[in-house]
C-alpha cells in the first residue's frame, strides 16, 4: 500500500529515561510515517512505549528524559530539539490530543462553554464568534441542545458526552494531526461504536490525520487504514490493517492476534496466552527483543533482526518474517 504525502515522519526515534536502576530505554529506533488525512493505529500492550511515543510527538517528555535521538518531522519541521516557543505554536493548534479519561481532561470547575471558548485564545475573533464556533463543534459531535448546555459543568455530562466534548475541543482548531490516546477504552461497547463512527466522520469532514492509540484490536480494525504494532519500545511490524490482520509476519503480532478472544471462533476451554514477561528495558537483552517469549525462535535470534519489507508498506522486524506467511 502506497504511503500518501507525508505529514508526520518519525525517523529512528530513541528515548531513554533516567531511573535509579539505570537508563531505561523506553523507545528504540522507532520509525513511523503518516500521510495527510490518514488514520494510523498504534497497537501495543502496557509498557510498549505508546505513551512515550505520544509524549515525544507533542514535546511533553518528562524531566528525567536523558537521551533523545532521531527525528520527528511534522510538516517538514523537526520536533526533536525544537524550541519550546515553536513547539507551543504546533501543540494545541496543529497537533491536538484526546486522552483516555475525559473527566480528568476537562476542568471540573469551569463550564463547558467557558473552557471551549478559552481554548480558542489564538483566534482573532470576537467572544460571540468563539461561542458560535463552540456551539457549531458541539453540534458536530452530536451534542443535543448544545447551546443550552454551554453553562453546564463536566460532572453534569455522561461519560460518552464528556468524550464527545473532548473530541469537539480537540477539533476546534482544525488540527493537521489528532492524537487519540485510547479514547474509547473507558466507554461502553455501544458508545465505543458511536465514538469511532463520529471520529471517522469528523476526520473526513476536517481532513486531519489521526494517530489512534489503542489496545483494542477490534476498534483499530474498524477505524484505521494502517497500523503499527509496538512491543517493549520497538515497532515490530507495520502495514495496512488488512495485511497485518490477514498476514501478520512478526511472531508477536501473530501471538497478539491469536490471544484476542474476539478472533477465536470455535469455543476454547483453554485460552491462548503469551508466556513470560516483558524484557527489562534497563538491561536490554541482545538480539531480538521478543526472543525470550517467541514460539518461533532459533539461533539467529540472538542477532538483532533486520526490518524486512514483506510488500509495499508492510514491514516486520523478524529473521523469519518472510517464512511466517499464513497458509
Amino acid at each position: 500500500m502506497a504511503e500518501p504525502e507525508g505529514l508526520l515522519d518519525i525517523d529512528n526515534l530513541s528515548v531513554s529515561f533516567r531511573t535509579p536502576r539505570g537508563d531505561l530505554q523506553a523507545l528504540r529506533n522507532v520509525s513511523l510515517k503518516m500521510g495527510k488525512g490518514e488514520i494510523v493505529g498504534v497497537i501495543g500492550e502496557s509498557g510498549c512505549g505508546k505513551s512515550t511515543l505520544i509524549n515525544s510527538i507533542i514535546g511533553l517528555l518528562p524531566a528525567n528524559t536523558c537521551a533523545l535521538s532521531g527525528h520527528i518531522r511534522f510538516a517538514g519541521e523537526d520536533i526533536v530539539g525544537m524550541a519550546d516557543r515553536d513547539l507551543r505554536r504546533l501543540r494545541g493548534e496543529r497537533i491536538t490530543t484526546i486522552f483516555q479519561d475525559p473527566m480528568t481532561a476537562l476542568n471540573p470547575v469551569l463550564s463547558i462553554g467557558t473552557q471551549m471558548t478559552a481554548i480558542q485564545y489564538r483566534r482573532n475573533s470576537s467572544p460571540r464568534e468563539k461561542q458560535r464556533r463552540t456551539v457549531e463543534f458541539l453540534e458536530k459531535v452530536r451534542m443535543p441542545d448544545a447551546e443550552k448546555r454551554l453553562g453546564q459543568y463536566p460532572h453534569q455530562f455522561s461519560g460518552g458526552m464528556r468524550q464527545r466534548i473532548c473530541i469537539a475541543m480537540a477539533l476546534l482548531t482544525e488540527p493537521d494531526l489528532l492524537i487519540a490516546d485510547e479514547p474509547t477504552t473507558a466507554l461502553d461497547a455501544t458508545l465505543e461504536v458511536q465514538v469511532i463512527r463520529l471520529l471517522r466522520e469528523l476526520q473526513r469532514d476536517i481532513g486531519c490525520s489521526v494517530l489512534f492509540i489503542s489496545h483494542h484490536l477490534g476498534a483499530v480494525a474498524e477505524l484505521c487504514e494502517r497500523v503499527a504494532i509496538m512491543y517493549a519500545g520497538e515497532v515490530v511490524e507495520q502495514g495496512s490493517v488488512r495485511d497485518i490482520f490477514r498476514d501478520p509476519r512478526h511472531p508477536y503480532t501473530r501471538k497478539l492476534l491469536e490471544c484476542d478472544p474476539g478472533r477465536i471462533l470455535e469455543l476454547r476451554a483453554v485460552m491462548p496466552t503469551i508466556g513470560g514477561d516483558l524484557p527489562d528495558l534497563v538491561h536490554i537483552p541482545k538480539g531480538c527483543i521478543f526472543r525470550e517469549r517467541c514460539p518461533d525462535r532459533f539461533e539467529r535470534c540472538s542477532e538483532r533482526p533486520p526490518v524486512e519489507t514483506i510488500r509495499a508498506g508492510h514491514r516486520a522486524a523478524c529473521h523469519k518474517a518472510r517464512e511466517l506467511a499464513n497458509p
Partner: protein
Amino acid sequence: MKPLLTVNDVTIRFPAANRLAARLSGQPRFIEAVAGVSFALEAGKTYALVGESGSGKTTLARAIVGLVPTHGGQIEFNGERISGLSENRLRRVRREIAMIFQDPLGSLSPRLKVRSTLAEPFTVHGETAGIERKIIALLEDVGLPAHFAERYPHQLSGGQARRVAVARALALRPKLVIADEPTAGLDVSIQGEVLNLLRDLQAKFGTTFLMISHNLNVVRHVADRMAVMYLGRIVEEGNTAAIFAAPRHRYTRALLSANLKPDPDHSAPLIEVEGETPSLLKRPSGCEFHPRCIFSLAVCKQQAPKEQIDAGHRFSCHNPG
C-alpha cells in the same frame, strides 16, 4: 439439579442523591438499581451477568454477598435464604461466597504484604492453625512463587495483583465466587492467563462462578449461561451459546453487534443504538429500551413487554429478532 444460588425477583433501591429536589420536581425519591431480577445458578458452572455501565450488575453481585441490602424478593444460597440476614449470620454464609473485586490493586490494601492480605480470611473465620502453610499453598494454586508473600501490592503487575485477588477469594474454598470484571484493564495476553486460572480452579475445586463482564468475547468462551441486564432488569437470559447464536432482545442484538470484530473484512451491519442509557430517575415508559431501539413499535412505548420463554431462553421484547 437443585441450583446453588437462586435470585428471585430481587429489587435493590438507593435513595436519590438529592431527595428534596426529587420531591419538588416530582421525581421518585428512590432509584431502583436492580428492579425485579430472577435467575438461578447451577453448581460447578459459570454464569455471566452482562450489561453496560449502570445496568445494575455490580449492585446485584454486591447484594448477593450481603454488601448492600435488598428491598424485595429473596436470594437463596444452598437452599437457605440469605437476603435480609443479620451481619452475624451473614458471616457464616460469607465463608461460602467470595468476591473478586473489579479493581484488583484497589481492593488490596497498599500497606499489607501479600502474606497479610491472604492471612485475613483465615483470621476472620478463626482458622489460624497452619496459616503459613495455607498461604504458600494458595500462592501455588494461583501460580505465584512463595516469595511473593513478602511483596506489597505496588510491587505486583496487573496480572499478579489479579492472581493475589483470586487467591484471597479462594482462601476458604468457597462454593461460589463472584468475579466482577476479572479481566478488565488487562492486556489480552494476560487476560487468557487469568481466565485459564479460573477455569483450572473450577475444575480442581468445583467452584461455581458468577462473572460480571462487559467483554462479550470473553463471556462467550467461559460462561455456560448468561443474563443481559439493562437498567436494572434482565432483558434476556439463557444458555450462552443459544444467546450468541440467536439473540432475541433488540438490546442484546445491539450489544453483540457493537462488539467490534478484530477483522478488517468483517462487515456485519452495525445495529446502531441511539443515545445513551437513560437515568434511573427517569425510566422510559413501556419497554425501557424503546427510546434507543431502532426497531421499536407503537406498543413498545406504552406497554412493558412480558417475559417470553422459549426452550429455557427468556427474553422480554415486543419485536424480537
